[in-house]
């Protein structure tokens, strides 16, 4: 069992295990799966913000904060006990693409060019992580959900708004991954 958990998982293991989040939360807690609303709850719980968007009883949504607390702990377990920091088996054409962007640290879960602390305040890291993170937070809240709430939960409910949002995710992602990321990685 531990051997299986520690090895690299094929897509048909990862995907269904991810999809199980939908019935797990519905049946065990009568909650719809979603992660990005936690950003709103974190702000409402910790910061003195006077916009109406942050004036609500966030404690009623504490389950969502418990969920992300669990994610942090689960990820720590995966990374330390289950060999979770192993390099993905990327396709050869992807490896060539990243090499052409000047990304040398290809045999890891994340590129050192972005995640190594020695590059923390480089222009590349600030644009990719700090500004990119800003767009993730702003966009997820504007569209009313993220990959969890719209792509997995929303599509499972055959919800039209979620389908529109997911189409948006891919329009935005394709544009930036093709036109902007190569430039940012060269910074």
């Amino acid at each position, binding site marked *: 069992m531990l051997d299986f958990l520690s090895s690299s998982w094929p897509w048909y293991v990862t995907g269904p295990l991810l999809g199980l989040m939908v019935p797990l939360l519905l049946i065990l*807690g009568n909650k719809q799966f979603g992660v990005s609303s936690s950003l709103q709850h974190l702000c409402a719980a910790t910061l003195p913000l006077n916009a109406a968007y942050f004036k609500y009883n966030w404690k009623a949504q504490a389950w969502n904060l418990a969920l992300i607390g669990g994610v942090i702990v689960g990820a720590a377990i995966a990374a330390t006990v289950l060999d979770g920091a192993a390099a993905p088996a990327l396709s050869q054409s992807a490896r060539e693409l990243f090499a052409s962007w000047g990304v040398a640290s290809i045999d890891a879960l994340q590129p050192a060019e972005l995640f190594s602390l020695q590059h923390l305040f480089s222009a590349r890291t600030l644009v990719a992580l700090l500004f*990119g993170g800003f767009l993730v937070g702003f966009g997820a809240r504007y569209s009313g959900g993220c990959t969890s709430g719209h792509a997995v939960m929303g599509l499972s409910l055959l919800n039209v708004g979620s389908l529109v949002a997911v189409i948006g995710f891919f329009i935005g992602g394709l544009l930036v991954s093709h036109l902007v990321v190569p430039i940012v990685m060269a910074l």
Partner: protein
Amino acid sequence: MKLLKFFLIGVYFGIVLIKGEVVSWFRIQEMFHFRSFYMYGVLGSAVVVGVVSVALIRALKIRSADGSEIKLAGKPFNKVGNLTGGIIFGFGWALTGACPGPLYALLGAGYWAILLAIAGALAGTIAYGYLKPHLPH
């Protein structure tokens, strides 16, 4: 105590995100460049499991663990908000190589640089909170 079960479901989700490589910047760029089927297989099969689960809950009138009726109403359809917000989210997804679940998972896995992205995401949320009354939805 009621929160413990959500915490444990989160632990499960965190393990799947890391072991499934969904948190990897490489996997996200590979997906957007159509260099591998992996992420499409992951997202597609996750949605299939979700659709089947919801259909079974509806057909068998399965109730939640506490006996309550399971709420299956979708989020409201906001034409402009869903699409515009979605596109902006996509910009950020490609730039960081991470969506919100992976932001937290990468923190747990010890990739401390992700704190920059989490700080950015909270700032983005605050910005949206203040701009919301002025934005088209």
